[in-house]
């Protein structure tokens, strides 16, 4: 009889939800009660909204349990493991039971995330048991030439997943065609888009797939040195990458004459980013590895010709690279089966914001945004009204509800004014103010601008000032036009993608929500009831308990009332700071 196995998901998200304690508790009880079962760890399967997740495999099948916090461990051991009676209430999915939340998996196709949440990311053996490093073996055993590898990548149609969407095979071809005594391959793991975490999840869940992807790339372009540029905010990813690199070195998968291919030598090292969004841009990233300020350089020459230390260099994103071994092993035509004419394969999206099932999903290109949000994502939290979705982070744009039938592929998304970006999908409902969101992104890009180009440096600041004014009720006629004018100038006169795309969130929100801008400017109203300065604050007498919390917090003493008596806000004193609203625990402050 096979031993029962308990697998706990230990990704960053899971750990934040308490999975570490769950893992320890299984160990503790097993030890204390001397029960015979195995405990393993894995990373995450993207179901953040039900973390901590635990999978139990016994002779009757597989059971996925959700929300297994420490308190439930005892019960699960007692009922399921000791007495073979699974607990349907906690089960997300098994052969017999299927909870509503299991719809999260319907329609997903896992290529990039094939191993995430299924294998122990700290074990090279588990990666290999799932076909890991078989792509490299295939190259070696069938004497696949570098040209043939590049042709396969071209045939698969895969486009860069880091934001640009440039065909990966073409980039490799350029890098191959430049001769040099030294070439570099770089994995871009800077994941700067605030609101996206697919790269982190892949690095934490399946680091070897990225390393194998880099190997194949190095073989194809003729590189002998590799760098993984990873942001320092991802300590767990860095730890697991280090473990994976060590394991690969020990097995001889890194070093000289790898996989028996004569003269194919490769060493890979990790560079920790130091916190600058602009370093995700490839020339800035190169400058940063060289030890300088991460400021973009002029292209051409492109990195394929003159990159790191002036040698030909190929840079790909984590997600792009994780697909490569699958493509080589299964053949490009298998990959190209999925997707649309010009966007092949699958794409990972990070679903966040006002959505019921927040997490990571991998879907074939060509599915509609609506299906992602309603079928996989379960719809909007609190059944509020869906308003818009932000795609592509600070470089992207807002897609309104009425365009949610848009399919996800590079060209359809671009047509709306947003971009596919890295795949962050932030869902907004009727309580999210789009002007505030646009201001948020401008604040971000304004801070992150490297300062080299005048329009990016100063223009973003001026735009931010105008947006701040608008959200504080001091908007003027002509502000919208002024925003548009500055936006176009910044787009036209910036050196790198940061400046060229920074105005997108503003332009798309003006395009689709002009009336909301106008309500702020003309009527001094925020239709979403979100901009603090544009609201009126009133006490709801029925709810007020007279706890005085609001009055104590009010910076201008605008609230009067005795203890245990209904309080009252003096409208002519109130400065609309919103403190009373956050202080009141009894929902007794009304916004209007």
């Amino acid at each position, binding site marked *: 009889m096979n031993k029962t196995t308990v697998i706990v998901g230990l990704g960053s998200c899971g750990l934040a939800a308490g999975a570490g304690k769950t893992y320890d508790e299984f160990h503790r009880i097993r030890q204390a009660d001397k029960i015979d079962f195995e405990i393993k760890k894995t990373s995450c399967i993207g179901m953040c909204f039900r973390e901590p997740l635990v999978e139990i495999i016994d002779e009757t099948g597989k059971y996925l349990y959700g929300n297994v916090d420490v308190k439930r461990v005892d019960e699960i051991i007692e009922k399921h493991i000791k007495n073979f009676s699974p607990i349907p209430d906690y089960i997300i999915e098994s052969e017999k039971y299927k909870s509503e939340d299991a719809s999260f998996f319907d329609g997903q196709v896992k290529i990039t995330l094939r191993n995430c949440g299924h294998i122990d990311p700290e074990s090279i053996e588990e990666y290999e048991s799932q076909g890991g490093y078989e792509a490299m073996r295939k190259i070696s055993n069938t004497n696949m030439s570098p040209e043939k590898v590049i042709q396969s990548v071209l045939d698969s149609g895969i486009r860069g997943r880091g934001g640009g969407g440039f065909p990966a095979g073409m980039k490799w071809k350029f890098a191959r065609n430049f001769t040099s005594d030294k070439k570099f391959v770089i994995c871009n793991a800077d994941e700067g888009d605030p609101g996206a975490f697919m790269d982190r999840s892949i690095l934490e869940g399946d680091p070897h797939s990225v390393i194998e992807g880099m190997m194949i790339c190095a073989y194809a372009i003729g590189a002998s040195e590799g760098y993984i540029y990873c942001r320092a*905010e991802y300590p767990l990813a860095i730890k697991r990458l280090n473990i994976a690199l060590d394991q690969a070195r020990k097995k001889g998968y890194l070093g000289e004459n790898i996989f028996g291919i004569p003269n194919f030598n490769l060493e890979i090292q990790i560079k920790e980013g130091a916190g600058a969004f602009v370093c995700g841009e490839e020339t800035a990233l190169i400058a940063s590895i060289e030890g300088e300020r991460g400021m973009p350089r002029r292209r051409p020459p492109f990195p394929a010709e003159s990159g790191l*230390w002036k040698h030909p260099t190929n840079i790909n994103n984590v997600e792009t690279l994780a697909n490569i071994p699958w493509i080589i092993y299964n053949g490009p035509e298998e990959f190209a089966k999925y997707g649309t004419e010009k966007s092949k394969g699958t794409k990972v999206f990070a679903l966040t914001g006002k959505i019921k099932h927040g997490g990571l999903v991998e879907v074939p290109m060509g599915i509609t945004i609506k299906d992602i949000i309603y079928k996989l994502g379960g719809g909007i939290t609190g059944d509020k009204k869906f308003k818009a979705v932000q795609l592509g982070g600070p470089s992207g744009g807002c897609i309104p509800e009425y365009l949610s039938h848009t399919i996800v592929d590079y060209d359809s998304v671009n047509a709306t004014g947003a971009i596919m970006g890295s795949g962050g999908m932030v869902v907004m409902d009727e309580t999210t103010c789009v002007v505030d969101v646009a201001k948020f992104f401008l604040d971000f890009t304004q801070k992150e601008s490297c300062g080299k180009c005048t329009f990016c440096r100063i223009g973003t600041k001026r735009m931010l000032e105008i947006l701040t004014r608008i959200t504080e009720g001091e908007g003027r006629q002509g502000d919208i036009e002024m925003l548009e004018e500055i936006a176009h100038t910044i787009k036209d006169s910036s050196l790198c993608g940061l400046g060229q795309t920074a105005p997108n969130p503003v332009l798309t929100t003006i395009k689709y929500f002009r009336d909301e801008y106008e309500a702020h400017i003309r009527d001094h109203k925020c239709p979403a009831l979100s901009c603090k300065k544009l609201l009126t604050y009133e006490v709801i007498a029925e709810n007020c308990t007279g706890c005085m919390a609001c009055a104590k917090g009010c910076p201008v003493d605008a609230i009067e009332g005795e203890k245990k008596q209904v309080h009252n806000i003096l409208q002519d004193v109130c400065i609309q700071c919103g403190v009373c609203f*956050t202080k009141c625990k009894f929902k007794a402050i009304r916004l209007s």
Partner: protein
Amino acid sequence: MRIKRIIPQTAIDSIPMPDVPDLALMDPLIEKYKTRKGNLIPLLQGTQEIYGYIPHEAFLKLNRETGLKLNEMYGVATFYAQFRLSPAGKHIIKMCHGTACHVQGVTAITDELSDLLNVKDGETTEDRIFTLETVACLGCCSLAPVMMIGEETYGKLTPKEASKIVKEIRRNEKLMENAKS
């Protein structure tokens, strides 16, 4: 723009700077990276790991022993968000102000902690226990709003919970301090 002011912020001004640190601690680091290409950032990162910030004396030592120019080092140190030029508190509270956390109302939480600790973004409390910082995305966006203290990440926060966590840490610190003295 991505340039930090070099002058320490006012909140820290009132706190005496610690004495010149033991610079010998840097020797192995310098030995390791001295001759490597692109060593500037790893050297600064290593120094910060030792002292928790990069003391001015450390810059001088790096300049003497590796030949890296002071202006280059300060240029890099002020460009990247990671580097600190003045000491931080024992616990660094990183409030995520990424998109998802913004949409889920992290601002109210930061304001609450800011009030509670009486510091603004980037400042250190007088007792040197906490530094409050805003960062862009900790990668746990589905658990927004999120904050990270040390290696621990806390998700699905409310202002109340966040201040509870912070108060708890402060209480433990005080207990430990009292136990020592």
